[in-house]
């Protein structure tokens, strides 16, 4: 272990770390509202509705296949469909597709966890179902989603490393490039692992705190 080399590696890995964070946060910012909306729809839809089936198929596919296969599918199929998407957005699409599959379930559980009395009270006050959902249920559900969603962010940071395979120059790809240029693996992997660990562990600590806070006000347990 050569501390000077490690410091150099650290400096060179900071911009790719920025990309890792940017792509994870972008994906989260799209996937969370999507998950809440579709999850709420799924909780409300009557069983057998075609859109509910479609959502179930999405969740089933995302949970039943490795993220690498989902990334390949997007990487190969988008150009085949004639869409010329830049690599960064391909990565975002892949992460959103994957993460929303999990967050639909989080959103659904959050909506269903809101007490029935809230629905009844709103109905008694003359609100119809969509208005109740929008004005009373969703804001509470969104609050309860916070803990699991923070967890999802650390999952996304981990998942974004897989985007290295479609040559997106994020943290893991950058580390691989330094390894093959210098033929030194231990220092590079230790620095890379340290960078991932600080963020992922930090975020999961915050998620745990938020969940405990929510639990005291009737929140959700962790999803994964």
């Amino acid at each position, binding site marked *: 272990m050569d501390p000077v080399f490690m410091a150099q590696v650290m400096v060179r890995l900071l911009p790719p770390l920025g990309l890792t964070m940017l792509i994870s946060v972008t994906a989260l910012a799209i996937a969370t509202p999507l998950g809440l909306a579709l999850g709420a729809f799924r909780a409300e839809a009557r069983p057998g509705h075609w859109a509910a089936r479609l959502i179930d198929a999405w969740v089933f596919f995302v949970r*039943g296949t490795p993220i690498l296969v989902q990334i*390949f599918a997007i990487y190969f199929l988008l150009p085949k469909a004639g869409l010329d998407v830049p690599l960064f957005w391909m990565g975002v699409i892949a992460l959103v597709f994957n993460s929303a599959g999990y967050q639909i379930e989080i959103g659904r559980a959050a909506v269903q966890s809101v007490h029935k009395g809230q629905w009844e009270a709103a109905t008694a006050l003359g609100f119809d179902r969509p208005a109740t959902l929008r004005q009373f249920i969703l804001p509470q559900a969104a609050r309860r989603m916070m803990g699991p969603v923070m967890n999802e962010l650390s999952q996304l940071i*981990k998942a974004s490393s897989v985007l290295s395979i479609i040559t997106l120059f994020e943290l*893991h790809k950058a580390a691989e490039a330094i390894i093959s240029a210098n033929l030194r693996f231990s220092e590079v*992997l230790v620095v890379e692992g340290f960078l991932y660990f600080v963020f*992922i*562990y930090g975020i999961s600590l915050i998620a745990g705190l938020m969940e405990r806070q929510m639990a005291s006000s009737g929140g959700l347990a962790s999803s994964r």
Partner: protein
Amino acid sequence: MSFDWGTFAEYGPRMLRAAGVTVQVSVLSLGLACLFAPPLATARLIGPRPLRWLVQAFVEVVRGVPPLVVIAFVYFALPRVGLVLSGFWTGVAALTVVGTVYAVEILRAAIESLGRGQLEAALALGFPRWRAYLELLLPQALRRILPPLTNELANVIKASALLSVISVHEITQVGNALIFETFVVVEILVQMTLLYLVIVGSVTVLSRRLERSLAA
């Protein structure tokens, strides 16, 4: 351009063999993880303090980095310490590391879910702590972890796709190679997906069955 079912007959056998590798790698890894997890969880819960910290640090670090980093580390580090393994066994080693820390967490959660009452009752009856742990808590916890452990098998199967980067000939690696060999994209992606859905799906069904039969 239409969907060519003939590719299923043509590449099916290779994909099925790859599916066999995926299952073998995953089952072997989780099996080994199940051997390592009980002693580690024991050390984590009732070991001497430095050992407890060491195990916890190991668990947190492996959970806090992407599995790809663990795979890369094992891939580079094993030959460095004189262990030159085939791609397959390197893959097993890497997934065992990942599987072990999750199994330790599952076991720890199961033991802690048993509640303090049992431990206190045993201590009150004069059992030493380690005997209460080994003879009372651990056997009960081992029964409880079966459903989450099958769930973890599904996760290990999905993580095994990452072994394609160290050229283990599992579903993703073989499928990807076939795509570049033949330029048949859609049909091969569908085959990969179906294989994973069948394997992961049956593991999930098994997990739910176990959960119900243990709850009864």
